[in-house]
């Protein structure tokens, strides 16, 4: 998700804009239009707050940092999963109503707030970090920068779950029981590729975590506000490790002779 180019110039004196906001809960709901006066420099979350203050005191929205770092203001703006606090109004066409709706891959609680607790349950199922025996007698380890470079990218994740929301395996196929989603494939990659980690997760990835459901269509990469190259750097390398272990007869044969991780 790039910062995007300016589509609408908002004058210093401000201008009118219509926001078509989803109001409702898990049982029913509808879009309601709100017309407000917007100023230069505003983001979608500001507009929602203004609507809340001026016209709809009961509008439910979750937010915290307003700086793109807490990952709580995830929603869909004009159909694309985005952080509301990082979506500037001048990136949108304000001549048309701006559609703001909750994420689609999780159950709705109220208005723009969804229940993302499924993600926390999934995380608990991933084998935690298990470091190898310390390298030095004083109980410390040695690592090179080259070793950690790759996993550092994955650690930028703010758990906004936008990638989970856009992934069609969850969004359109509702495979929540069988697929952990891109966020947790990134998490698995961060652990599995960690130079000190001695745990083995490839079997889980194939069997319990459903990595095979990902059909590498890269929507997760497209929406990640932290610009993590989810598909190319996390998922595909993990898929290749699954191939090594389960689908490639040659590497399977070699594996018999190679010592296991400590």
């Amino acid at each position, binding site marked *: 998700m790039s910062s995007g180019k300016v589509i609408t110039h908002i004058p210093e004196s401000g201008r009118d804009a219509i926001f078509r906001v989803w109001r409702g809960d*898990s049982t029913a709901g509808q879009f309601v239009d709100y017309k407000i006066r917007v100023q230069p420099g505003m983001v979608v979350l500001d507009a929602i707050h203004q609507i809340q203050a001026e016209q709809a005191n009961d509008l439910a929205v979750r937010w915290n940092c307003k700086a793109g770092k807490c990952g709580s203001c995830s929603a*869909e703006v*004009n*159909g*694309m*999963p985005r952080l509301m606090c990082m979506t500037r109004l001048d990136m949108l*066409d304000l001549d*048309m109503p701006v*559609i703001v*709706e909750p994420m*689609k*891959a*999780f*159950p*709705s609680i109220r208005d723009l707030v969804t*229940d993302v607790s*499924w993600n926390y349950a*999934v995380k*608990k*199922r991933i084998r935690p970090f298990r470091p190898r025996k310390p390298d030095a007698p004083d109980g410390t380890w040695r690592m*090179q920068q*080259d*070793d950690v470079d790759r996993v550092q990218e994955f650690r930028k994740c703010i758990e906004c779950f936008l990638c989970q929301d*856009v992934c*069609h*395996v969850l969004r*359109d*196929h*509702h*495979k*929540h*029981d*069988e697929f*952990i989603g891109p966020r947790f494939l990134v998490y698995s990659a961060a652990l*599995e*590729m*960690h*130079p000190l980690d001695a745990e083995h997760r490839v079997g889980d990835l194939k069997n*319990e975590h*459903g*990595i*095979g*459901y*990902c*059909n*590498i*269509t*890269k*929507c997760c990469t*497209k*929406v990640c506000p932290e610009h993590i190259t989810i*598909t*190319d750097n996390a998922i*595909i*390398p993990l898929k*290749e*490790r699954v*191939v*090594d272990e389960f*689908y490639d007869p040659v590497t399977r044969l070699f594996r018999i002779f190679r010592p296991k991780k400590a």
Partner: protein
Amino acid sequence: MAQINVPLPQLRKLGETSRRDRWWLAPLLTFLGLSAFIVYSTWAALQGEHYFVPGTEYLSPMYSPVLFDSWKIAAPSGHAWFGPWPDWLPKTLLFIPITPAFLILWAPGGFRFTCYYYRGAYYKAFWADPVNCAVGEPGFRGKAYRGEKKLPLIFQNVHRYFFYIAVLFIFLLSYDAIISYWFHDAAGHGHFGIGVGSLVLTLNPILLGCYTFGCHVYRHLVGGRKDEMSKLGPRKKVYDCVSCLNRRHMMWAWFSLFWVGFTDFYVRMVSMGVIHDIRIL
């Protein structure tokens, strides 16, 4: 696995979305681009002639390597590894001609078909799975979605074997590029020269190399499978180069695809006498 207990929003219908941009454009271009290539390459493969240019060493990449010369041509092309079309090979199958191209095209075809980039792209463009990000899919798949976890798409995992063969093709096509600087005069004497065709044939393995050596399989084999990159030694440089090509894998995929088609077209047109190959030297 964690269960989700609260009802999820209704599944959307095909093409249903709140997106305002032209989300249909990218899959449409992919569809048109790949379809155009499939139609042209099938047509070219069915011809069984004009895949080389007499008097030059030009050879269409869609026919290289030539295992047996086509049964449609009278004089040998000079490129065949095992001579003329043998009797034990049928000439047609259900009235469809079998040409030397069909003996080899399965390899680059399979390589591209199982390539991670193309997979993602044609799942969208040809199977609408999904049509594009955050756009509704055809409803029939729903929860029955199998992805690449089950048959038949689980076979995409053979990609690395196609990669091994593709590397072999890079060497073969590089050889074709090198010999394309050799020409024969009417008396049969060979001499060095440079034709526009030589340049066309040279660019081909370069673009294909950038595509093939940026493959995710290669990236994995050369270093990605290791957790401690610092232990790779000089191979770390190779890994970095592969990663660099890999970042533009989509671009190389399209450039190389187009150029393979264009190279065949060029050789074919020169061979048919439609265009004249300009000799630079």
